[in-house]
């Protein structure tokens, strides 16, 4: 099995120009895919060709370039809709990224939250799915409640979910996959509970869409947010998917450009979906790049992408687990996506990252934009390796060897901790 999977993507590194880069005398080993992914040549070429051949502002223009740019931009919506199994492209709003999607959504829903209402998130949120709801709750004097982490299993503890999601709950916003623990959250189960009490369900899918097949309808959620740059596409673009029936009844929160139908000095009316939620000149070249990234992923097949990363994370987990003085956070490999966060005593994660960098290995060190979770886990910082389609078992071997070496450099001395 191992060999089959490894082989299925064995030549894919060639499609990513950056992966042939050297760091000093070492080949780049890029293991920070949860932060952002590298881009295949097809994505770079699609954007470059857009600018060299078709660039124009969209929607309105009658001349050839404008017609071409409009078609390309609308096609990007259609491809995105197909990719996540949305009902139609009317449900696909292009944003600047997951953070922008979630902030927009919080503003769109703000008038439906009143004093005494409740908003539910989880204890494992990325700041982008915590602070927008926290600030909304504080502004409306609503309560922010948390689905707890079961520290032992690394999974969300749903045993008391009926106490957390109650008749006062208006919004439930949860991650599909934790960017720290890798935990895959059972969206449907939580969504069903939320819908029973009439709450809407938003999913922070930044870490799932690039790594596994997703179907927004079978997840039974209402809103779904993700980023282009984490799915082998460009920076500057993200997606907010929402059920058409809900989007139809929500008001836009950003104004100007293509989102209007009629404008008077004192009032305005709005365009059809999805344009009513896309104010200003949109990320056109970025839409073209996202299209190409989706084509790239669909060519690989999301089932295969998931199988590859699942196998890789199991391989890495087992190898890391066998090290001395290692703490790994989060669930067993079979319940997680391709993310492993750990600490390798006595090496501080910053020093580990620096030492790995000397071998060309890129990992992340810090709180991974989830400070409250770090506090909950009682750690001030941790190291994170996160995998993508182009990573290999050989790279994992190199990672593990280099961690060992770092530990040996640092071992023996007194650690400066009081």
């Amino acid at each position, binding site marked *: 099995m191992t060999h089959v999977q490894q082989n299925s993507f064995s030549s894919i590194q060639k499609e990513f120009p950056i992966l042939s880069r050297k760091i000093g005398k070492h080949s780049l080993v890029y293991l920070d895919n949860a932060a952002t992914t590298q881009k295949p040549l097809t994505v770079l070429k699609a954007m470059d060709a857009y600018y060299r051949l078709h660039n124009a502002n969209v929607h309105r*223009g*009658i001349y050839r370039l404008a*017609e071409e740019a409009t078609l390309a931009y609308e096609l990007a919506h*259609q491809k995105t809709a197909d990719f996540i199994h949305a009902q139609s492209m009317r449900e696909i709003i292009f944003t600047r990224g997951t953070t922008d999607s979630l902030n927009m959504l919080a503003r769109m829903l703000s008038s439906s939250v009143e004093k005494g209402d409740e908003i539910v998130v989880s204890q494992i949120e990325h700041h982008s799915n915590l602070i927008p709801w926290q600030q909304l709750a504080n502004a409306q004097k609503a309560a922010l409640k948390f689905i707890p982490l079961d520290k032992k299993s690394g999974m969300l503890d749903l045993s008391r979910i009926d106490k957390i999601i109650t008749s006062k709950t208006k919004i439930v916003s949860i991650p599909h996959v934790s960017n720290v623990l890798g935990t895959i959250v059972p969206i449907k189960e939580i969504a069903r509970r939320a819908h029973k009490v009439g709450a809407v369900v938003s999913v922070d899918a930044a870490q799932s869409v690039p790594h596994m097949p997703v179907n927004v309808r079978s997840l039974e959620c209402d809103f779904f947010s993700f980023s282009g740059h984490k799915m082998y596409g460009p920076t500057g673009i993200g997606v907010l998917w929402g059920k058409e029936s809900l989007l139809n009844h929500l008001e836009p929160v950003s104004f100007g450009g293509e989102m209007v139908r009629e404008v008077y000095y004192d009032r305005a009316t709005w365009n059809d979906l999805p344009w009513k939620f896309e104010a200003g000149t949109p990320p056109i070249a970025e839409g073209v790049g996202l299209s190409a990234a989706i084509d790239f992923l669909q060519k690989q097949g999301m089932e295969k992408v998931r199988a590859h990363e699942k196998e890789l994370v199991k391989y890495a987990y087992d190898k890391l687990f066998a090290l001395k003085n290692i703490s790994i956070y989060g669930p067993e490999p079979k319940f997680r996506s391709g993310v492993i966060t750990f600490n390798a005593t006595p090496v501080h994660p910053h020093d580990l990252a620096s030492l790995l960098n000397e071998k060309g290995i890129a990992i992340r060190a810090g709180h991974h934009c989830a400070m409250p979770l770090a506090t909950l886990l009682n750690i001030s910082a941790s190291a994170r390796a996160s995998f993508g389609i182009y990573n290999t078992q050989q790279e994992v071997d190199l990672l593990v060897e280099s961690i060992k070496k770092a530990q040996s450099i640092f071992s023996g001395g007194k650690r400066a901790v009081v």
Partner: protein
Amino acid sequence: MTKLEAPEKSFAGEGMYREHILDHYQHPRNFGEWKTCSVQHTELNPVCGDQLSFQLNVDEKGKVMDVHFNGQGCAISIASASLLSDEIKGKTMVQIQKLDKNGIQALLGITLGPARLKCAMLSLDIVKNACLIYQKYGKGGK
């Protein structure tokens, strides 16, 4: 996989304003206004400022016996309206609902890009909606 229609090699190319489109623009058929009709309906395309109004006379079997239109717009929207007004005479309201952008482009004899297609489709949208209003509310509209 749903696919957006790929752009024709050349939309709105040379010869877009061929004789018969200019003729229908400059001498629109069935152009004007009546005192009475079965149903009247007006729509504005605020994006481009085009505004057209259609009046239909419909018999008991739901067949359009006669049609008038008026309003203002670009050559494509006026010519489309003029051509359409001839086309729907004698058609039933059920048949009219089946007309689509291919039908309009066939009447014009050209293929249009998305922006100009909106100009061409305004009259069909109005006629279809007029029929729906008539079917729902009967003579005189709502």
